[in-house]
C-alpha cells in the first residue's frame, strides 16, 4: 500500500512534468530552440493565479484561465521581441537570448513579488479515500493526471487533424519548403509559443498546488527536469514527452522514498544518461538516418 501511494504521487508529479514537457517539445520541434525561459513562464503563471485568488478574490478555476491568458500573451510577446529577430542566427545565440529572458522574468518577479515564498492555496482541496481509507488520493492529483491526459489527447488531435496542426508539422520538417507552400511560418511559430505558454500556466498552477509555495525560482528546476523528460521520451514527440514526464516523476518519487532523498535528482539524471546512451534519440524519438 505504501508503494502504491508513492507510485501515485510519482504519477501526479510526473503529470506536471509531462505538461511542461509537452510545451517544451512543441517549441523545440518547431523553432528548434531550447527555450530556457519556459520554466519561468510556469512561475509567472503560478504568481498570476496566486494574485487572482488572494488579491482579487476570484475562484480557483477563473484564476487558472486568467493565468493561461496572461502567459499566452507573455509567450507570444517574448517570441516576437526576443526570438523572432534571431531566426537566422546560430542556435547558441538563441540559447543565450533565452537565458537572458529567463533572468529577466526571474528578476522581474523578484522585484514585483519579493524573494520570500508565498503560500499558495491549492485550486481544489480534499482527498478521495480508497480501500476503506488505507490509501488516499488528493483531488489535486486526480485533476493533474486528468488534465495531463486531456491535454495530451487534445494536442495529438490538434497536430494530427487540424489545418494549423498540419502547418506546424510542416514547419518542423522544413521551414523554407513550408513557406513556399503558403504557410505563414512566423504566425505558426507564434501559435506554438502561445500553446506552449498556456500549458506552462496550467503546469504552474498545478505545480504550486502540490508544493503550496511560490518563489521567483520556483520554475527553474521543474523546467530543467521537464526538459530532460522531453529528451528522455524523444524530443519533438508528443506521446514521448508524456511518457518521459510520467516516468521521470515515478523515478523521482520512488528514489526519494526507497533510496535517498538527497540523491533523488542524481538518480533521475543518471537514469536519463543511461537511456540516452542506449537509445540516443530518446524512448519514442524518431531515428533520423544521416545523409552524406
Amino acid at each position: 500500500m505504501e508503494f502504491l501511494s508513492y507510485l501515485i504521487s510519482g504519477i501526479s508529479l510526473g503529470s506536471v512534468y509531462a505538461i511542461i514537457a509537452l510545451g517544451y517539445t512543441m517549441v523545440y520541434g518547431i523553432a528548434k530552440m531550447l527555450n530556457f525561459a519556459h520554466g519561468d513562464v510556469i512561475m509567472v503563471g503560478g504568481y498570476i493565479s496566486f494574485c487572482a485568488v488572494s488579491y482579487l478574490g476570484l475562484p480557483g478555476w477563473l484564476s487558472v484561465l486568467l493565468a493561461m491568458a496572461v502567459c499566452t500573451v507573455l509567450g507570444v510577446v517574448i517570441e516576437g521581441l526576443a526570438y523572432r529577430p534571431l531566426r537566422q542566427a546560430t542556435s547558441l545565440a538563441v540559447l543565450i537570448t533565452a537565458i537572458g529572458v529567463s533572468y529577466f522574468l526571474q528578476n522581474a518577479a523578484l522585484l514585483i513579488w519579493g524573494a520570500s515564498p508565498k503560500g499558495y492555496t491549492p485550486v481544489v482541496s480534499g482527498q478521495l479515500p480508497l480501500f476503506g481509507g488505507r490509501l488516499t488520493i488528493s483531488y489535486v492529483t486526480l485533476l493533474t493526471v486528468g488534465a495531463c491526459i486531456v491535454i495530451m489527447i487534445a494536442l495529438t488531435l490538434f497536430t494530427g487533424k487540424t489545418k494549423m496542426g498540419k502547418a506546424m508539422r510542416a514547419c518542423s520538417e522544413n521551414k523554407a519548403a513550408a513557406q513556399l507552400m503558403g504557410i505563414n511560418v512566423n504566425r505558426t511559430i507564434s501559435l506554438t509559443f502561445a500553446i506552449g505558454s498556456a500549458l506552462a500556466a496550467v503546469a504552474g498552477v498545478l505545480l504550486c498546488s502540490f508544493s503550496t509555495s511560490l518563489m521567483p525560482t520556483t520554475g527553474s528546476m521543474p523546467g530543467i527536469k521537464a526538459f530532460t523528460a522531453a529528451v528522455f521520451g524523444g524530443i519533438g514527440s508528443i506521446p514521448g514527452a508524456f511518457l518521459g514526464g510520467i516516468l521521470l516523476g515515478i523515478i523521482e518519487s520512488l528514489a526519494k522514498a526507497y533510496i535517498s532523498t538527497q540523491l533523488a535528482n542524481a538518480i533521475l539524471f543518471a537514469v536519463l544518461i543511461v537511456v540516452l546512451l542506449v537509445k540516443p534519440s530518446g524512448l519514442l524519438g524518431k531515428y533520423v538516418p544521416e545523409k552524406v
Partner: protein
Amino acid sequence: MKKNMGRLGRLKKTTKVDFATYLGVTAAFIVVSMLRDQGVLTRSLTGMLVPICCYIVMAVSLNLTVGILGELSLGHAGFMSVGAFTGVITAMSLQSAIPFAPVRLAVAMIVGALFAGVAGLIVGVPVLRLRGDYLAIVTLAFGEIIKELINCLLVGYDAKGLHIAFNISGSLTIDDLNMAEGGIAIIKGAQGATGTTTIASFGAGFVLIMLSLVIILNLVRSRSGRAIMALRDNRIAAESVGINITKYKLMAFITSAALAGAAGALYGLNYSNLAASKFDFNTSILVLVYVVLGGLGNIWGSIIAAAVLYILPEALREFSDYRMLVYAIVLILVMLATNNPTIKGLFARLREKLTRGRKAEAKGGGR
C-alpha cells in the same frame, strides 16, 4: 629595429594574435597589481581578482569545447566543482607535509585538474557519441549529479589519513567519521567545505591563466587542433579523410575539463566556506554566456568577456535591486544587436576598410 619589424610583419596573423593575447594578459596583470598595491582598487574589487582569474580560465576552457570543438556543454561548472573540492581536500590534508603555501596551492591545482580530467574522461567516452542538444543535456545532468554527490560527501583528516563517508541516508554527521583527536573536518555534506585555509592569490591566478592560454593556443594551432576544428566544421568530411573522431573529441573535452578543474581548485582555496550548490546549472550558464559574448573560438574575446561581465553586476550596483534586471536586458540587447544583419554588415564593411587601409600602408612602408 627595422629588421625586427619586418620579421614581426612576416609572422602569421594567428601567431600575432596569440602574442598580443599573452602580452595583454601580462600587461593587465601588472597594471592591476600596481593599482592594488597603491590602494586604488576598492575592497570589493580586490576581493574579485581571484574569482575573475578563475572565471577567465573557465571561459577559455569552455571555449575549447564549445567554440573550437563545437559541442555544447551545459555542465562545465561540474568539472569546476570536482576540481574545487578535490583541491580543497588536497590542500587541507597536505598542510603539515607542505608548509609553503604556493607549492601546496600548485599541488592542489594539479590534483584538481587530474580529477576533473578523469571526470571528463568518464563523461566524455560514452557521451561524445551523442550529438548536439543531447550532449548538452547529458553534460547538464552530469553537473547536477556531481552537485548532489558532493552534497552527500563527508571528508575529514587526522593523523591516520583521510576519512571519507558517503551520507546517503542523510543522517550521518561529521562525528560519524570517528576521527582521532585533532582531526579536522574538510567537507561537511551540504554545508560544503568549511574552515578552509585560503591560500589562493592573484599571482597564482595569473600563472594559471597564462598556463591555460599556452596549453589551449598551442593545442589549437597544432595538427591536433586543426583536426578538432575540422570535426567542428564538417564531421563527415573530417571522418572521411581519416581523422579519428573519438580521439580528438576526447582530447579537447578532457583538456577543457582539466583546466576547469584547476580553476575550480584555485576558486575553492579562495574562500573559507564553499558549498557545492555554488557550482550549479546557473554557473555553467554564466560561463557559457561569457564564451558566446566573447565570440565562439575567440580566446581573447573570452578573457575580456569574462572579466567585464564578472564586474558588470558589481558596477551596476547603483541600480541596486534593478541590477540583475538591467543585466538581463543588456544580455538580450547585445545578442539581438550582434545578430542583427544591418549592424553585422556595418561592422564587416568597417573591418574591410580598416584592413584595406592597413594593407596599403604596409605596401607603402615596405618600399
